[in-house]
């Protein structure tokens, strides 16, 4: 395989023998490599042999499909059984709160209303209106908080630039992918919807699955 005859490559120089001086062979014979699979082509079969080959190959094909029949279906029964996603799957956004305050009243939001996510968004689907925190009404950890935080999920392209842009990890991409609705207006998610835990958790894919 590797030792291709140079005579085939260079019919113009048959006079120079291969075993002679290497200087007379300006071009080394090229080898396609050890891992090349050789395809053997037989001459085209005649009528009888062709018929037999067609029949034999048909039977071989039928055997293959019958073998598939005894295997279990690979279908995921979707509405009942959800497709598992990878941990870094970019689904519906989530807004986050700090976790360390006491459970009697809602903890502080991480979002400080800086609008960097809205600036980074290539689809222009995030709208943030910031307001000042006051000692009576303290919503976030910073000076300001997001009074309005809306994501239009019918425009979102799920690129994840918003979570990259966020300096406080306040917005991340979640795992929800069931985002269809009957009304476009229902796809504009407000801050309360993004802060809330999703009703149903999307199953995660196992390691190596």
């Amino acid at each position, binding site marked *: 395989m590797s030792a291709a005859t140079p005579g085939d490559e260079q019919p113009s120089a048959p006079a120079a023998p291969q075993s002679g001086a290497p200087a007379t062979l300006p071009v080394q014979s090229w080898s396609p490599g050890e891992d090349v699979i050789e395809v053997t082509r037989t001459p085209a079969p005649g*009528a009888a042999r062709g*018929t037999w080959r*067609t029949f034999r190959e*048909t039977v071989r*094909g*039928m055997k*293959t*499909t*019958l073998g*598939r*029949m005894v*295997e*279990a*279906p*690979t*279908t995921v*029964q979707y509405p009942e059984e959800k497709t598992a996603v990878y941990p870094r799957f970019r689904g519906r956004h989530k807004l986050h709160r700090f976790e360390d305050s006491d459970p009697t009243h809602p903890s502080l939001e991480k979002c400080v209303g800086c609008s960097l996510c809205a600036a980074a968004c290539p689809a222009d689907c995030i709208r943030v209106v910031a307001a000042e925190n006051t000692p009576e009404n303290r919503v976030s950890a910073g000076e300001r908080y997001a009074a309005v935080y809306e994501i239009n999920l019918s425009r979102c392209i799920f690129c994840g630039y918003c979570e990259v842009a966020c300096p406080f990890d306040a917005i991340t991409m979640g795992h929800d992918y069931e985002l269809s609705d009957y009304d476009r207006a229902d796809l504009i998610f407000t801050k309360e919807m993004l802060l809330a835990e999703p009703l149903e958790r999307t199953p995660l894919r196992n390691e190596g699955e």
Partner: protein
Amino acid sequence: MTTPLAQVGFYEAWWVQILKAIVIFAVGLQLVPVVLLAERKVLGRFQARYGPNRVGPYGALQPLADIVKLLTKEQFRPTTSVGVLFAVAPLISILTAVAAFAIIPFGNVQHIFGERVGLYGVDLSIGPLYLFAFGAMAFYGIMLGGWSSGSKYSFLGAMRGAAQLISYEVSQGLALVGVIISAQTLSLTGIVTAQKGMWYLVPQFFGFLIFLTASFAETNRAPFDLTEADAELVGGYNTEYGGGRFASYYFAEYLNVLVVSGIVTTIFLGGWLLPFGIHPPGWVDPFVVLFKMSLITFLFIWVRATLPRLRYDQLMSFGWKVLLPLATLNALVTAVLVVVTH
């Protein structure tokens, strides 16, 4: 002996014939939705999926849902279509399929309530010829439907159908000649009783293969479904059809599958006979036939799940250059053997 066209093997009282017709078709036509569902389920399994499983338990009501959907749809036709023929063509298809169903024997003559009743629609002395006559007429259903639609896709499908059905009918008929020579009769019940010693599947194995292959083409099933090649012709001859008329075509296709299964069962698999000298009581016969038919129907589905569609020139050269010489050779060899051994 003086009947000009055909003799009927066995006469019954007129009311028995009417009752028999109703029972056979009431049962026979219920088989079509079963085959429809079976095809989708089995095809699903071949492709590692479930098939329909939403309507009813295990999707059992899927054919019913399909039929209701199709029948409640609007009847429409393209402005370029030829009205009368457009409406009549599906009827021809379904009529020929139902007519061919009449000659499949589900059992021998039985004594039911003191009457002697043959478990078949009619036992003709020209059984296979009757089948081919209606097979040739079924071609008008496809041809007229495709042509009168006034659509290019339909027309191409009809043209292909015309050439295909004519080409393969020759091989189909010749493949049966071997059996007919051996059985010395054209009556289908006669052919079944001639298989008492051995089913014709064994001595006529090549005839069986040729007949089966030609039947795939005659019923427009994969891999010979060029008339409705979805990938090239949208839907072929029935592109412009919808609603009840499309349902008729669909129904005729599956009924044709059943008819061919029945004919193969009768001619090559010994009809209602069981091997190893088992002689069950008469009421078992129809179930034996139905079981054998289901095996052949499974083979139809299996082939559909396996083989890719032929190209048109491959179809033609296969039909004329391979199948026809093989069928002729089969008939010739059988004839010589019968003459030599008798």
